[in-house]
Protein backbone atom coordinates (compact mmCIF):
# COMPACT_ATOMS: atom_id res chain seq x y z
CA UNK A 1 0.00 0.00 0.00
CA UNK A 2 1.43 3.38 -0.95
CA UNK A 3 1.87 6.16 1.58
CA UNK A 4 -0.67 8.22 -0.31
CA UNK A 5 -3.28 5.46 -0.07
CA UNK A 6 -2.64 5.02 3.65
CA UNK A 7 -2.94 8.77 4.26
CA UNK A 8 -6.11 8.86 2.15
CA UNK A 9 -7.64 6.03 4.16
CA UNK A 10 -6.77 7.68 7.47
CA UNK A 11 -8.22 10.97 6.26
CA UNK A 12 -11.35 9.21 5.05
CA UNK A 13 -11.78 7.50 8.42
CA UNK A 14 -11.39 10.83 10.25
CA UNK A 15 -13.93 12.56 7.99
CA UNK A 16 -16.31 9.65 8.47
CA UNK A 17 -15.94 9.90 12.28
CA UNK A 18 -16.45 13.67 12.20
CA UNK A 19 -19.52 13.22 10.01
CA UNK A 20 -20.91 10.71 12.50
CA UNK A 21 -20.46 13.20 15.35
CA UNK A 22 -22.26 15.94 13.41
CA UNK A 23 -25.04 13.51 12.47
CA UNK A 24 -25.40 12.43 16.11
CA UNK A 25 -25.58 16.08 17.20
CA UNK A 26 -28.36 16.76 14.69
CA UNK A 27 -30.27 13.61 15.62
CA UNK A 28 -29.96 14.49 19.30
CA UNK A 29 -31.36 17.95 18.56
CA UNK A 30 -34.30 16.42 16.72
CA UNK A 31 -34.96 13.99 19.59
CA UNK A 32 -34.94 16.73 22.26
CA UNK A 33 -38.74 16.95 22.31
CA UNK A 34 -38.85 13.46 23.84
CA UNK A 35 -36.67 14.55 26.77
CA UNK A 36 -39.57 14.92 29.25
CA UNK A 37 -39.99 11.10 29.13
CA UNK A 38 -36.36 10.72 30.19
CA UNK A 39 -36.23 13.46 32.80
CA UNK A 40 -35.47 11.12 35.71
CA UNK A 41 -32.66 9.42 33.84
CA UNK A 42 -31.33 12.84 32.78
CA UNK A 43 -31.33 14.07 36.38
CA UNK A 44 -29.52 10.89 37.47
CA UNK A 45 -26.93 11.49 34.78
CA UNK A 46 -26.51 15.15 35.77
CA UNK A 47 -26.19 14.23 39.44
CA UNK A 48 -23.61 11.55 38.68
CA UNK A 49 -21.65 13.88 36.42
CA UNK A 50 -21.62 16.59 39.08
CA UNK A 51 -20.70 14.32 41.97
CA UNK A 52 -18.07 12.43 40.00
CA UNK A 53 -16.22 15.50 38.81
CA UNK A 54 -16.87 18.11 41.52
CA UNK A 55 -13.94 17.36 43.88
CA UNK A 56 -11.30 17.19 41.17
CA UNK A 57 -12.74 20.23 39.36
CA UNK A 58 -12.57 22.32 42.51
CA UNK A 59 -9.03 21.24 43.40
CA UNK A 60 -7.76 21.93 39.89
CA UNK A 61 -9.65 25.24 39.71
CA UNK A 62 -8.17 26.40 43.03
CA UNK A 63 -4.65 25.68 41.85
CA UNK A 64 -5.32 27.15 38.39
CA UNK A 65 -6.49 30.39 40.02
CA UNK A 66 -3.45 30.35 42.28
CA UNK A 67 -1.07 29.80 39.35
CA UNK A 68 -2.80 32.51 37.36
CA UNK A 69 -2.46 34.99 40.22
CA UNK A 70 1.14 33.96 40.85
CA UNK A 71 2.29 34.24 37.23
CA UNK A 72 0.45 37.50 36.63
CA UNK A 73 1.37 38.90 40.03
CA UNK A 74 5.11 38.35 39.52
CA UNK A 75 5.02 40.55 36.42
CA UNK A 76 2.61 43.10 37.88
CA UNK A 77 4.83 43.50 40.93
CA UNK A 78 7.68 44.62 38.69
CA UNK A 79 5.49 47.51 37.55
CA UNK A 80 4.03 48.08 41.00
CA UNK A 81 0.53 47.41 39.74
CA UNK A 82 -0.65 44.44 41.78
CA UNK A 83 -3.89 46.27 42.57
CA UNK A 84 -5.39 44.93 39.35
CA UNK A 85 -4.55 41.31 40.20
CA UNK A 86 -8.13 40.56 41.29
CA UNK A 87 -9.43 41.97 38.00
CA UNK A 88 -7.11 39.87 35.86
CA UNK A 89 -7.65 36.68 37.82
CA UNK A 90 -11.43 37.07 37.85
CA UNK A 91 -11.68 37.86 34.14
CA UNK A 92 -9.30 35.08 33.10
CA UNK A 93 -11.06 32.52 35.25
CA UNK A 94 -14.53 33.44 34.04
CA UNK A 95 -13.67 33.87 30.37
CA UNK A 96 -11.16 31.07 29.78
CA UNK A 97 -9.80 29.03 32.63
CA UNK A 98 -13.03 28.09 34.42
CA UNK A 99 -14.84 26.62 31.40
CA UNK A 100 -11.63 25.11 30.02
CA UNK A 101 -10.70 23.34 33.25
CA UNK A 102 -14.26 22.12 33.79
CA UNK A 103 -14.57 20.91 30.19
CA UNK A 104 -11.28 18.99 30.29
CA UNK A 105 -12.08 17.40 33.65
CA UNK A 106 -15.56 16.43 32.47
CA UNK A 107 -14.00 14.89 29.36
CA UNK A 108 -11.56 12.89 31.47
CA UNK A 109 -14.04 11.73 34.11
CA UNK A 110 -17.59 11.77 32.76
CA UNK A 111 -16.83 11.63 29.02
CA UNK A 112 -14.56 8.61 29.39
CA UNK A 113 -17.18 6.89 31.50
CA UNK A 114 -19.90 7.68 28.93
CA UNK A 115 -17.79 6.25 26.11
CA UNK A 116 -17.11 3.13 28.18
CA UNK A 117 -20.78 2.66 29.14
CA UNK A 118 -22.17 3.19 25.66
CA UNK A 119 -19.28 1.26 24.08
CA UNK A 120 -19.84 -1.73 26.36
CA UNK A 121 -23.56 -1.62 25.58
CA UNK A 122 -22.71 -1.53 21.89
CA UNK A 123 -20.30 -4.47 21.87
CA UNK A 124 -22.62 -6.54 24.07
CA UNK A 125 -25.56 -6.01 21.69
CA UNK A 126 -27.58 -3.86 24.10
CA UNK A 127 -27.75 -1.01 21.58
CA UNK A 128 -28.87 -3.47 18.89
CA UNK A 129 -31.46 -4.78 21.38
CA UNK A 130 -32.86 -1.26 21.72
CA UNK A 131 -33.06 -0.98 17.94
CA UNK A 132 -34.92 -4.26 17.54
CA UNK A 133 -37.38 -3.08 20.20
CA UNK A 134 -37.89 0.04 18.04
CA UNK A 135 -36.32 2.19 20.76
CA UNK A 136 -34.13 4.90 19.26
CA UNK A 137 -30.68 4.65 20.95
CA UNK A 138 -30.12 8.36 20.34
CA UNK A 139 -33.30 9.26 22.16
CA UNK A 140 -32.77 6.67 24.91
CA UNK A 141 -29.02 6.87 25.53
CA UNK A 142 -27.56 10.01 23.99
CA UNK A 143 -30.03 12.86 24.61
CA UNK A 144 -30.17 12.47 28.43
CA UNK A 145 -26.37 12.44 28.58
CA UNK A 146 -26.05 15.51 26.34
CA UNK A 147 -28.61 17.51 28.33
CA UNK A 148 -27.04 16.42 31.62
CA UNK A 149 -23.59 17.68 30.61
CA UNK A 150 -24.98 20.81 28.92
CA UNK A 151 -26.48 21.71 32.31
CA UNK A 152 -23.71 20.46 34.58
CA UNK A 153 -20.76 21.95 32.70
CA UNK A 154 -21.85 25.59 33.25
CA UNK A 155 -22.91 24.77 36.81
CA UNK A 156 -19.48 23.36 37.62
CA UNK A 157 -17.88 26.25 35.74
CA UNK A 158 -19.50 28.77 38.09
CA UNK A 159 -18.06 26.86 41.04
CA UNK A 160 -14.68 26.60 39.31
CA UNK A 161 -14.66 30.34 38.74
CA UNK A 162 -15.41 31.10 42.37
CA UNK A 163 -12.87 28.63 43.72
CA UNK A 164 -10.25 29.75 41.18
CA UNK A 165 -10.69 33.40 42.13
CA UNK A 166 -10.43 32.39 45.77
CA UNK A 167 -7.24 30.40 45.02
CA UNK A 168 -5.83 33.55 43.43
CA UNK A 169 -6.74 35.60 46.51
CA UNK A 170 -4.70 33.30 48.77
CA UNK A 171 -1.59 33.80 46.63
CA UNK A 172 -2.31 37.51 46.29
CA UNK A 173 -2.45 37.93 50.04
CA UNK A 174 0.33 35.60 51.19
CA UNK A 175 2.88 35.84 48.40
CA UNK A 176 2.28 39.14 46.68
CA UNK A 177 1.21 41.31 49.59
CA UNK A 178 -2.12 42.36 48.07
CA UNK A 179 -4.74 42.98 50.71
CA UNK A 180 -7.80 40.69 50.45
CA UNK A 181 -10.12 43.70 50.38
CA UNK A 182 -8.32 45.21 47.40
CA UNK A 183 -8.22 41.87 45.58
CA UNK A 184 -11.93 41.13 46.06
CA UNK A 185 -13.05 44.69 45.29
CA UNK A 186 -11.11 44.73 42.01
CA UNK A 187 -12.42 41.25 41.16
CA UNK A 188 -16.02 42.27 41.91
CA UNK A 189 -15.72 45.50 39.94
CA UNK A 190 -14.33 43.64 36.93
CA UNK A 191 -17.35 41.37 36.91
CA UNK A 192 -20.03 44.00 37.54
CA UNK A 193 -18.84 47.09 35.72
CA UNK A 194 -20.37 46.27 32.34
CA UNK A 195 -23.78 47.64 33.22
CA UNK A 196 -25.53 44.52 32.00
CA UNK A 197 -27.10 41.84 34.16
CA UNK A 198 -24.30 39.43 33.32
CA UNK A 199 -20.91 40.79 32.33
CA UNK A 200 -19.67 39.66 28.94
CA UNK A 201 -16.82 37.64 30.46
CA UNK A 202 -19.28 35.65 32.53
CA UNK A 203 -21.82 34.93 29.82
CA UNK A 204 -19.18 34.12 27.21
CA UNK A 205 -17.61 31.74 29.73
CA UNK A 206 -20.93 30.12 30.53
CA UNK A 207 -21.78 29.84 26.85
CA UNK A 208 -18.45 28.12 26.30
CA UNK A 209 -19.23 25.75 29.15
CA UNK A 210 -22.55 24.78 27.54
CA UNK A 211 -20.77 24.21 24.21
CA UNK A 212 -18.06 22.14 25.92
CA UNK A 213 -20.67 20.06 27.77
CA UNK A 214 -22.48 19.28 24.52
CA UNK A 215 -19.23 18.58 22.67
CA UNK A 216 -17.86 16.22 25.34
CA UNK A 217 -21.09 14.24 25.62
CA UNK A 218 -21.70 13.96 21.87
CA UNK A 219 -18.09 12.98 21.12
CA UNK A 220 -18.07 10.44 23.96
CA UNK A 221 -21.40 8.88 22.98
CA UNK A 222 -20.33 8.79 19.32
CA UNK A 223 -17.11 6.98 20.26
CA UNK A 224 -19.12 4.49 22.30
CA UNK A 225 -21.69 3.92 19.57
CA UNK A 226 -18.90 3.21 17.06
CA UNK A 227 -17.01 0.85 19.38
CA UNK A 228 -16.49 -2.65 18.09
CA UNK A 229 -14.38 -5.66 18.91
CA UNK A 230 -14.99 -6.30 22.59
CA UNK A 231 -12.95 -4.90 25.47
CA UNK A 232 -10.15 -3.68 23.22
CA UNK A 233 -12.64 -1.74 21.10
CA UNK A 234 -14.18 -0.16 24.20
CA UNK A 235 -10.71 0.87 25.40
CA UNK A 236 -9.96 2.49 22.06
CA UNK A 237 -13.34 4.24 22.14
CA UNK A 238 -12.57 5.73 25.55
CA UNK A 239 -9.15 6.86 24.36
CA UNK A 240 -10.66 8.47 21.25
CA UNK A 241 -13.43 10.11 23.29
CA UNK A 242 -11.04 11.85 25.70
CA UNK A 243 -8.55 12.82 22.99
CA UNK A 244 -11.18 14.21 20.63
CA UNK A 245 -13.06 15.98 23.43
CA UNK A 246 -9.92 17.81 24.58
CA UNK A 247 -9.06 18.81 21.00
CA UNK A 248 -12.62 20.07 20.47
CA UNK A 249 -12.60 21.99 23.76
CA UNK A 250 -9.47 23.86 22.68
CA UNK A 251 -10.69 24.53 19.14
CA UNK A 252 -14.24 25.49 20.17
CA UNK A 253 -12.88 27.64 23.00
CA UNK A 254 -10.85 29.58 20.46
CA UNK A 255 -13.79 29.90 18.06
CA UNK A 256 -16.20 31.15 20.75
CA UNK A 257 -13.71 33.72 22.06
CA UNK A 258 -12.92 34.85 18.53
CA UNK A 259 -16.62 35.14 17.72
CA UNK A 260 -17.58 37.18 20.79
CA UNK A 261 -14.50 39.42 21.00
CA UNK A 262 -13.46 39.88 17.38
CA UNK A 263 -16.37 39.04 15.09
CA UNK A 264 -19.40 40.18 17.08
CA UNK A 265 -17.40 42.87 18.91
Amino acid at each position, binding site marked *: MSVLTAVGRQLGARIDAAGYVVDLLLRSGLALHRLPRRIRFTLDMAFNAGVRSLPVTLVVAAFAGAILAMQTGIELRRFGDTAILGTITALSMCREMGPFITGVILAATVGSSMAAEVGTMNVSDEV*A*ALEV*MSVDPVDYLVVPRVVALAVMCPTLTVLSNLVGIYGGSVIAEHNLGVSPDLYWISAREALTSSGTALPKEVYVGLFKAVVFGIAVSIVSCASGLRASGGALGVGLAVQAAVRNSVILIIVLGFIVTWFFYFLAG
Partner: protein
Amino acid sequence: MIELREVSKRLGGRQILDGMTLAVPKGMNFVLMGPSGSGKSVTLKHVIGILRPDSGSVQVDGQEVPAMGRTQLMALRRRMGYLFQNGALINWLSVEDNVALPLREHGRLGRDETRDRVHEVLRMVRMDHAAAQYPPSISGGMRLRTGLARALVTKPEYVLYDEPNAGLDPIISKQIHELIVEVRDQLGVTGLIVTHSRACAVQCGDRIGILDQGRLGIEGTVDELVHSEHPLARAFLHGGTD
Protein backbone atom coordinates in the same frame (compact mmCIF):
# COMPACT_ATOMS: atom_id res chain seq x y z
CA MET B 1 -43.40 -16.38 6.63
CA ILE B 2 -39.77 -15.29 6.59
CA GLU B 3 -38.14 -15.54 3.19
CA LEU B 4 -34.65 -14.71 1.98
CA ARG B 5 -33.89 -14.98 -1.75
CA GLU B 6 -30.38 -14.84 -3.19
CA VAL B 7 -29.17 -12.54 -0.41
CA SER B 8 -25.55 -11.41 -0.61
CA LYS B 9 -23.74 -9.30 1.95
CA ARG B 10 -20.14 -8.19 2.21
CA LEU B 11 -18.85 -6.96 5.59
CA GLY B 12 -15.34 -5.81 6.48
CA GLY B 13 -14.06 -6.80 3.04
CA ARG B 14 -15.34 -10.38 3.42
CA GLN B 15 -18.25 -12.01 1.59
CA ILE B 16 -20.46 -13.18 4.47
CA LEU B 17 -23.63 -14.14 2.60
CA ASP B 18 -23.43 -15.22 -1.01
CA GLY B 19 -26.76 -16.07 -2.57
CA MET B 20 -28.42 -17.13 0.68
CA THR B 21 -31.94 -18.49 0.16
CA LEU B 22 -34.11 -19.52 3.08
CA ALA B 23 -37.81 -19.93 3.87
CA VAL B 24 -39.31 -20.22 7.35
CA PRO B 25 -43.02 -21.10 7.23
CA LYS B 26 -45.30 -19.86 10.02
CA GLY B 27 -45.59 -21.83 13.23
CA MET B 28 -42.27 -23.58 12.73
CA ASN B 29 -38.88 -23.45 14.46
CA PHE B 30 -36.17 -23.26 11.81
CA VAL B 31 -32.64 -23.89 13.06
CA LEU B 32 -29.74 -22.27 11.25
CA MET B 33 -26.36 -23.86 11.90
CA GLY B 34 -22.89 -23.24 10.58
CA PRO B 35 -19.32 -22.50 11.55
CA SER B 36 -18.41 -19.32 13.45
CA GLY B 37 -18.39 -16.31 11.14
CA SER B 38 -20.47 -18.09 8.50
CA GLY B 39 -23.21 -15.46 8.57
CA LYS B 40 -25.83 -16.93 10.91
CA SER B 41 -26.26 -13.81 13.04
CA VAL B 42 -25.91 -11.62 9.94
CA THR B 43 -28.91 -13.50 8.51
CA LEU B 44 -30.97 -12.67 11.61
CA LYS B 45 -29.94 -9.01 11.40
CA HIS B 46 -31.20 -8.90 7.81
CA VAL B 47 -34.56 -10.31 8.86
CA ILE B 48 -35.04 -7.66 11.56
CA GLY B 49 -33.77 -4.86 9.30
CA ILE B 50 -30.57 -3.95 11.20
CA LEU B 51 -28.57 -4.85 8.08
CA ARG B 52 -29.54 -4.38 4.45
CA PRO B 53 -28.41 -6.86 1.82
CA ASP B 54 -26.06 -5.82 -0.97
CA SER B 55 -28.35 -7.76 -3.29
CA GLY B 56 -31.28 -10.14 -3.03
CA SER B 57 -34.59 -10.02 -1.24
CA VAL B 58 -35.58 -10.32 2.43
CA GLN B 59 -39.32 -10.63 3.04
CA VAL B 60 -41.49 -11.06 6.10
CA ASP B 61 -45.11 -11.93 5.29
CA GLY B 62 -44.53 -10.77 1.74
CA GLN B 63 -43.20 -7.34 2.76
CA GLU B 64 -39.75 -6.41 1.54
CA VAL B 65 -37.75 -5.53 4.68
CA PRO B 66 -34.87 -3.55 3.08
CA ALA B 67 -37.38 -1.32 1.30
CA MET B 68 -39.18 -0.40 4.52
CA GLY B 69 -39.08 3.11 5.90
CA ARG B 70 -38.52 3.81 9.56
CA THR B 71 -42.21 3.63 10.50
CA GLN B 72 -42.78 0.36 8.66
CA LEU B 73 -39.62 -1.09 10.18
CA MET B 74 -40.79 -0.13 13.66
CA ALA B 75 -44.14 -1.78 12.98
CA LEU B 76 -42.39 -4.93 11.75
CA ARG B 77 -40.11 -5.04 14.79
CA ARG B 78 -43.11 -4.83 17.09
CA ARG B 79 -44.27 -8.10 15.56
CA MET B 80 -40.88 -9.69 16.20
CA GLY B 81 -38.90 -10.63 19.25
CA TYR B 82 -35.14 -11.09 19.29
CA LEU B 83 -33.23 -13.08 21.87
CA PHE B 84 -29.58 -12.05 21.91
CA GLN B 85 -26.73 -14.38 22.90
CA ASN B 86 -26.31 -12.99 26.40
CA GLY B 87 -29.81 -11.56 26.76
CA ALA B 88 -28.50 -8.03 26.01
CA LEU B 89 -30.29 -6.65 29.05
CA ILE B 90 -29.91 -3.04 30.16
CA ASN B 91 -27.78 -3.25 33.30
CA TRP B 92 -29.30 -0.33 35.18
CA LEU B 93 -32.86 -1.63 34.81
CA SER B 94 -34.28 -4.41 36.99
CA VAL B 95 -35.46 -7.65 35.41
CA GLU B 96 -39.04 -6.35 35.55
CA ASP B 97 -38.13 -3.00 34.00
CA ASN B 98 -36.10 -4.69 31.27
CA VAL B 99 -39.08 -6.80 30.29
CA ALA B 100 -41.43 -3.83 30.52
CA LEU B 101 -39.16 -1.64 28.37
CA PRO B 102 -40.74 -2.29 24.94
CA LEU B 103 -44.26 -1.83 26.35
CA ARG B 104 -43.39 1.39 28.16
CA GLU B 105 -41.48 2.84 25.23
CA HIS B 106 -44.41 2.40 22.89
CA GLY B 107 -47.01 3.26 25.51
CA ARG B 108 -49.50 0.71 24.29
CA LEU B 109 -50.68 -0.44 27.70
CA GLY B 110 -51.59 1.26 30.96
CA ARG B 111 -49.42 0.89 34.05
CA ASP B 112 -51.43 -1.97 35.58
CA GLU B 113 -51.80 -3.83 32.29
CA THR B 114 -48.07 -3.49 31.67
CA ARG B 115 -47.25 -4.90 35.10
CA ASP B 116 -49.68 -7.80 34.62
CA ARG B 117 -48.31 -8.61 31.18
CA VAL B 118 -44.71 -8.43 32.40
CA HIS B 119 -45.39 -10.80 35.29
CA GLU B 120 -47.31 -13.13 32.98
CA VAL B 121 -44.27 -13.60 30.71
CA LEU B 122 -41.88 -13.68 33.68
CA ARG B 123 -43.95 -16.53 35.14
CA MET B 124 -43.81 -18.31 31.80
CA VAL B 125 -39.99 -18.20 31.74
CA ARG B 126 -39.82 -18.99 35.48
CA MET B 127 -38.31 -15.63 36.39
CA ASP B 128 -41.15 -14.09 38.39
CA HIS B 129 -39.24 -14.61 41.66
CA ALA B 130 -36.32 -12.50 40.39
CA ALA B 131 -38.32 -9.56 39.00
CA ALA B 132 -36.65 -7.03 41.31
CA GLN B 133 -33.09 -8.20 40.66
CA TYR B 134 -30.63 -6.49 38.31
CA PRO B 135 -28.82 -8.18 35.38
CA PRO B 136 -25.31 -8.08 36.90
CA SER B 137 -26.55 -10.08 39.89
CA ILE B 138 -28.26 -12.92 38.00
CA SER B 139 -26.84 -15.94 36.21
CA GLY B 140 -26.36 -16.34 32.46
CA GLY B 141 -29.35 -18.64 32.22
CA MET B 142 -31.53 -16.17 34.10
CA ARG B 143 -30.36 -13.36 31.81
CA LEU B 144 -31.35 -15.42 28.79
CA ARG B 145 -34.75 -16.24 30.26
CA THR B 146 -35.26 -12.53 31.00
CA GLY B 147 -34.22 -11.74 27.43
CA LEU B 148 -36.75 -14.27 26.20
CA ALA B 149 -39.44 -12.71 28.38
CA ARG B 150 -38.60 -9.31 26.90
CA ALA B 151 -38.79 -10.78 23.40
CA LEU B 152 -42.22 -12.27 24.16
CA VAL B 153 -43.80 -9.42 26.10
CA THR B 154 -45.16 -7.70 22.99
CA LYS B 155 -46.82 -10.97 21.85
CA PRO B 156 -44.70 -11.29 18.71
CA GLU B 157 -45.52 -13.51 15.75
CA TYR B 158 -41.83 -14.27 15.22
CA VAL B 159 -38.89 -14.70 17.55
CA LEU B 160 -35.30 -14.72 16.34
CA TYR B 161 -32.97 -16.59 18.67
CA ASP B 162 -29.25 -15.80 18.42
CA GLU B 163 -27.24 -18.61 20.06
CA PRO B 164 -29.81 -19.14 22.82
CA ASN B 165 -27.63 -21.55 24.79
CA ALA B 166 -24.15 -20.10 24.26
CA GLY B 167 -22.05 -20.51 27.39
CA LEU B 168 -24.72 -22.38 29.36
CA ASP B 169 -24.34 -25.75 31.04
CA PRO B 170 -26.38 -28.67 29.61
CA ILE B 171 -29.06 -28.50 32.32
CA ILE B 172 -29.77 -24.79 31.86
CA SER B 173 -29.50 -25.23 28.07
CA LYS B 174 -32.19 -27.93 28.23
CA GLN B 175 -34.46 -25.56 30.18
CA ILE B 176 -33.97 -22.90 27.50
CA HIS B 177 -34.70 -25.43 24.75
CA GLU B 178 -37.91 -26.47 26.50
CA LEU B 179 -38.94 -22.82 26.70
CA ILE B 180 -38.31 -22.33 22.99
CA VAL B 181 -40.48 -25.34 22.20
CA GLU B 182 -43.13 -24.06 24.64
CA VAL B 183 -43.13 -20.68 22.91
CA ARG B 184 -43.80 -22.37 19.58
CA ASP B 185 -46.40 -24.82 20.83
CA GLN B 186 -48.33 -22.66 23.29
CA LEU B 187 -48.04 -19.24 21.68
CA GLY B 188 -47.81 -20.33 18.04
CA VAL B 189 -44.69 -18.21 17.56
CA THR B 190 -42.51 -18.84 14.52
CA GLY B 191 -38.83 -19.18 15.45
CA LEU B 192 -35.59 -18.72 13.55
CA ILE B 193 -32.84 -20.15 15.75
CA VAL B 194 -29.14 -19.65 15.18
CA THR B 195 -27.01 -22.16 17.06
CA HIS B 196 -23.91 -24.34 17.05
CA SER B 197 -25.53 -26.79 19.38
CA ARG B 198 -26.72 -30.15 18.11
CA ALA B 199 -28.88 -30.54 21.22
CA CYS B 200 -30.57 -27.20 20.57
CA ALA B 201 -31.13 -28.05 16.90
CA VAL B 202 -32.58 -31.47 17.61
CA GLN B 203 -34.71 -30.45 20.61
CA CYS B 204 -36.05 -27.14 19.29
CA GLY B 205 -36.05 -27.43 15.51
CA ASP B 206 -38.62 -28.54 12.98
CA ARG B 207 -36.27 -27.93 10.11
CA ILE B 208 -32.52 -27.39 10.05
CA GLY B 209 -30.39 -25.53 7.53
CA ILE B 210 -26.59 -25.57 7.61
CA LEU B 211 -24.66 -22.64 6.18
CA ASP B 212 -21.72 -23.26 3.92
CA GLN B 213 -19.84 -20.54 2.05
CA GLY B 214 -22.51 -17.90 2.50
CA ARG B 215 -25.54 -20.00 1.60
CA LEU B 216 -27.47 -23.02 2.82
CA GLY B 217 -25.35 -26.08 2.09
CA ILE B 218 -28.04 -28.49 3.18
CA GLU B 219 -31.58 -28.18 4.52
CA GLY B 220 -34.18 -30.63 5.75
CA THR B 221 -36.26 -31.87 8.65
CA VAL B 222 -34.46 -32.74 11.86
CA ASP B 223 -34.93 -36.45 11.14
CA GLU B 224 -33.62 -36.16 7.58
CA LEU B 225 -30.50 -34.30 8.63
CA VAL B 226 -29.73 -36.37 11.70
CA HIS B 227 -29.65 -39.44 9.47
CA SER B 228 -28.01 -37.76 6.49
CA GLU B 229 -24.53 -38.73 5.35
CA HIS B 230 -23.89 -35.26 3.90
CA PRO B 231 -20.52 -34.00 5.25
CA LEU B 232 -22.13 -30.87 6.72
CA ALA B 233 -24.82 -32.85 8.49
CA ARG B 234 -22.19 -35.26 9.76
CA ALA B 235 -20.02 -32.40 11.02
CA PHE B 236 -22.80 -30.59 12.86
CA LEU B 237 -25.36 -33.20 13.81
CA HIS B 238 -23.66 -36.55 14.22
CA GLY B 239 -21.78 -37.65 17.31
CA GLY B 240 -22.17 -36.40 20.89
CA THR B 241 -25.12 -34.81 22.55
CA ASP B 242 -24.00 -31.24 21.93
